[in-house]
């Protein structure tokens, strides 16, 4: 299942747990767990869109609006790409 998750997200370029669940015919909870395992094993990495500002955030009037994670993004690592090539 993990290889299939990698293959599908590489093909679609998006990660939707409900859609993966439907396509792979497994529960959303299992997909969720699979994503966690792929992250843990380093096949995908989660990227943070809300980067912290190491400068003078405290003085910035918009500091509170800065570190929001509007969209979660991931990247398939080299290790992950290697697996996709074998599937």
């Amino acid at each position, binding site marked *: *299942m*993990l*290889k299939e998750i990698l293959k599908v*997200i*590489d093909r679609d*370029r*998006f*990660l*939707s*747990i*409900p*859609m993966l669940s*439907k396509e792979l015919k*497994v*529960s959303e*909870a*299992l997909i*969720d*767990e*699979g994503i*966690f*395992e792929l992250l*843990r*094993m*380093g*096949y*995908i990495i989660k*990227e*943070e*869109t*809300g*980067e912290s*500002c190491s*400068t003078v955030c405290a003085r*910035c*009037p*918009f*500091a*509170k*609006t*800065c*570190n*929001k994670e*509007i*969209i*979660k*993004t*991931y*990247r*398939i690592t080299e*290790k992950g790409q*290697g*697996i996709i090539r*074998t599937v």
Partner: protein
Amino acid sequence: MKNGKIALVGNPNSGKTSFFNALTGSNQHVGNWPGVTVEKKEGKFIYKDKEYDVVDLPGIYSLGAFSEDEVVARDYILTGDPDVIINIIDAGNIERNLYLTTQLLEMKKRLVIALNMVDEAEKRKIKFDLGELSKRLGAPVIPTVAHKGIGVEEIVEAAINAIDDKTSIENPLIYSGVVKHHIEHMEEILKNNNLPYPIEWTAIKIVEGDLNILKKLEGVNVDKKIIEDIKEYYKYHTSDSFELEIVDSRYAFAHKVAEYSVIRPLEEVITLTDKIDKILTNKYLGVPAFAIIMLIVFQLTFAIGEKLLGSFAAGSIEGLGRLLEIFLIKIKAPGWLVSFIIDGVINGVGAIIEFVPLITVLYLLLGFLEDSGYMARAAYVWDDLMRRFGLQGKAFISMIIGFGCNVPGIMSTRTMDSKKDRMITMLITPFMSCGAKLPIYSVFIAAFFSKHGGLVLFSLYAFGIFVALIMAKLLNKTLFKGDSSYFIMELPPYRIPTATNVLRNMWDNVSGFIKKAGTIIFLVIIIMWMLAVLPTSVEPYSQYSILGTIGTFLAPIFRPAGFGTWQESVALFAGIPAKEAVVGTLGMLYAGQYIEEGVILVNAIRQHFTPLTALSYMIMVLLYTPCAATLGIVAKETRSTKWPLIMAIYTFAIGWFVAVIVYQIGSLLGFS
């Protein structure tokens, strides 16, 4: 007399604690596991005159060694020697829960499965073939509803029977291919060595690459040769993919067991998310849908923020100004103080504060979109288009963030691993209309385009994106050649936005806007006011003041774009420290001049601009040099002064060029 130890193992929220309470009642003790802060719950119960110990292990999803909870649970199962494990499984979430079960099976421990919360699963029309489930897992399976005590007695009976069962335990999960070969090879190395752990499990963990197991073996009395063999295995034979194969096999097993023993409703559930996504993420409809949504946002912003609330705010500021002026005259305040407070503060900073309602409504609506899960779809549908312009969809995320403020938009490019994508995105993000530009557009829209405010505002935002894409293509073809890296975006299910999130988002932006008006912009306005009233020998706010002299020098640059007065020129330059200062400066210079005649800024704008020059001015504001904070962050991110300098000059040139084109073509076509 003690007759056995029972361990309760299960996922978090599987109902394990209800089980523990149902078994032990008040006869329990809570402490900590040695050396860690993980809670240890122990208890006792008596069944048919015999006493049994029960240990409630921490809720876990797997038996790796990745958290304290997992280590505690794993160590107890291995070394605490429970006679039987009651594995509590959430019946509604069986596949995920079975992943842990597969690992318990690998340990060859005697199991009893409590299929808990079956009542909830039945409500969702999920049925179970308990015989099949039991057969595939090689353990008794009892349906339970622990918090109601249903099935608890049957579980106790099954557990006690299991304690007395002396038959051998088989692991029904059999690995295949290379992994199987490696496990068997490792079992060969490990056998006949009196290991404290099950051989098959130890072999699996070594092949899986679990270094924790090596430490454990080193800590017990195991032949040194074995330790060396394992180390050599880790060094020369192991592979990252074995871990994936093993984990994947467990998932496949869990899925297969569920597939054969769980009966779900047949009809495919088409969720609301599916229905909405058919349109919003459609290859052809996605971008137009985004445009329509944004148009609605801007129309509502104008209808509610400007027309409904804006006039009230403007009236309040004006009223406050009059009251202050009367008060200052009454107390015989010096002329310079009256001029500073009324012309500088009220007409300058006040002109910006008037737009708080507009900003409030805009961020309320954008917060609604963000919290609904739509923004991820917007970035997704733009990904394809962005690629055609040599960028990745993540650039659109930076651009979306840039709609609020360009600084975090530029900072968000840090997640791009391609330098090319990063540089291009940084250089085009300033074309996004940040919140600070909104008051400028609003003044001009109110003066000339109030009937179509939302549409004009939308067009400006869209034009900014258009210019950004063209520049991306140009930069991609010239300065930064190469392929774009790609990424995976998570599309969360749609949800009804929560009032707390939406209001917090709105408040963070509005309070930032107000704070900025009271600090940076206030400072800029003070400087502008001083330059406008000095030297004292000339008429204040005249072209002979310091500000007037600077403006008169700069004005010819902008004449081809149709707005070449000294006031309009210096206002643009005042916008470089902070964009809102454009409105503040115009407010101070124009409204200040006419204050005695009661002409507010919008009316003053009408006198000094035409619809065509207003349009070219707004385009200049949209595209020209970004604010100092944005240039500063570019300097920091690129660790150079070259790029902010290039950014400052090239954006100014583009702004000027497009403004001139708009004005000249408009004039040729007969627009005024």
